């Protein structure tokens, strides 16, 4: 049987950082004009002692607290993050322990960003479809704020911290999640990255030296760097082809889908992709104004919001697409409920 989504829950840090806060701190950032383009009015920021794993734990606890399945029946935990608790062990192992999940389960991390949720769905679907697992807990969490320099307008205004947990189980038919189309191009790796902190370039006094780029953004090699134009053109080039490939693989047209949920990068990116891919505007679902770009959690947070609003109903067919850091991209189909 194919995998179906049994439930989704999310968790956001308490601290809200509004555009007004940023305008007060940086009067030269022209936050009003920036917000017109990005569509982002505020974002959540994790506290100094609050990690992605803490957010992941809260989201997963909330989901398990609904009693949708007995936690003892979960036999796989897949955790997507780019803000690991430690270099090792895996965050998934710590999460298994904190959630008091069974010791019989499989658990592993994978390091992807904005494509991560769709990748995770494919892994969960494959595990369930193959019979390797019956119930899979897919958790996404990131705290890019930990990497962002407070003086870097290009990243601080866009990204927000957050987590989501999705419980998948066997569906009634072979339909459910999938098919999927994935893609990778490591040639773009350094266009969205944190250069230091790994083993290739450990953090040091030298990597902490701050520089101001030609746009006036401040950062060091310890911080997140994003080449906005390169990311934009990457998405504009790759996503239309990825969606076209998915349509061909699924044997469908755009008209066959009830809703489209793309990675919620920002308004400008999404509007460009809607136009480029000729997606039906009335079928696009959005959720970024009050939370920003939460990386691998944007799609599940949007799904949860629109399930709760009543827009997404059981049996509806969704097209999901994630794209970004890596470069990495993925599109997939999901029949809801």
């Amino acid at each position: 049987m194919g995998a179906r989504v049994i439930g989704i829950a999310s968790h956001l840090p308490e601290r809200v950082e509004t555009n007004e806060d940023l305008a007060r701190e940086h009067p030269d950032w022209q936050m009003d004009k920036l917000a017109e383009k990005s569509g982002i009015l505020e974002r959540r920021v994790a506290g100094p002692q609050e990690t992605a794993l803490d957010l992941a734990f809260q989201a997963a606890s909330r989901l398990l607290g609904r009693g949708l399945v007995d936690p003892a029946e979960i036999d796989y935990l897949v955790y997507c993050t780019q803000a690991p608790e430690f270099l090792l062990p895996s965050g998934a192992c710590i999460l298994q322990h904190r959630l008091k999940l069974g010791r019989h389960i499989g658990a592993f991390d994978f390091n992807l960003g904005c494509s991560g949720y769709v990748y995770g769905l494919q892994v969960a679907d494959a595990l369930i479809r193959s019979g390797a697992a019956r119930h899979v807990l897919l958790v996404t969490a990131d705290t890019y704020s930990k990497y962002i320099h407070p003086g870097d307008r290009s990243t601080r205004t866009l990204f927000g911290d957050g987590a989501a947990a999705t419980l998948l189980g066997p569906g009634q038919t072979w339909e459910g999640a999938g098919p999927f189309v994935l893609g990778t191009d490591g040639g773009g790796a350094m266009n969205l990255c944190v250069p230091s902190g790994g083993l290739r370039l450990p953090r040091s006094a030298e990597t902490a030296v701050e520089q101001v780029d030609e746009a006036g953004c401040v950062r060091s090699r310890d911080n997140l760097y994003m080449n906005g134009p390169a990311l934009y053109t990457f998405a504009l080039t790759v996503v239309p082809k990825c969606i076209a490939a998915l349509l061909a693989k699924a044997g469908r047209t755009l008209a066959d889908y009830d809703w489209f949920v793309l990675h919620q990068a920002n308004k400008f990116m999404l509007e460009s992709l809607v136009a480029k891919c000729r997606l039906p505007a009335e079928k696009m679902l959005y959720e970024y104004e009050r939370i920003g770009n939460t990386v691998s959690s944007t799609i599940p947070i949007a799904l949860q919001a629109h399930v709760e609003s009543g827009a997404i109903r059981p049996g509806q067919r969704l097209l999901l697409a994630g794209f970004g850091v890596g470069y990495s991209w993925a599109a997939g189909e999901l029949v809801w409920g």
Partner: protein
Amino acid sequence: MKVQAFLDALCEALNREPGTITLADTKETLAEWNSIGHLSIVATVDSELNVPVDTPEMQKFSTIAELVARLKALKALED
């Protein structure tokens, strides 16, 4: 597309009055040409001219004349 029509499309993308961008303009002369404005220009090249924008040449330019010259070389613009 004619060069002037493209310049007018850039005006719209950067929220300027039509006719207020010329070949003489640069990053220094256009206040709207910040990082977001740059993306708006790239988006206009993509949407109006359907020119592949995934090349360094289509991402890095600092004068309107430079951009127009590249697009003319690609036969995407004409006088």
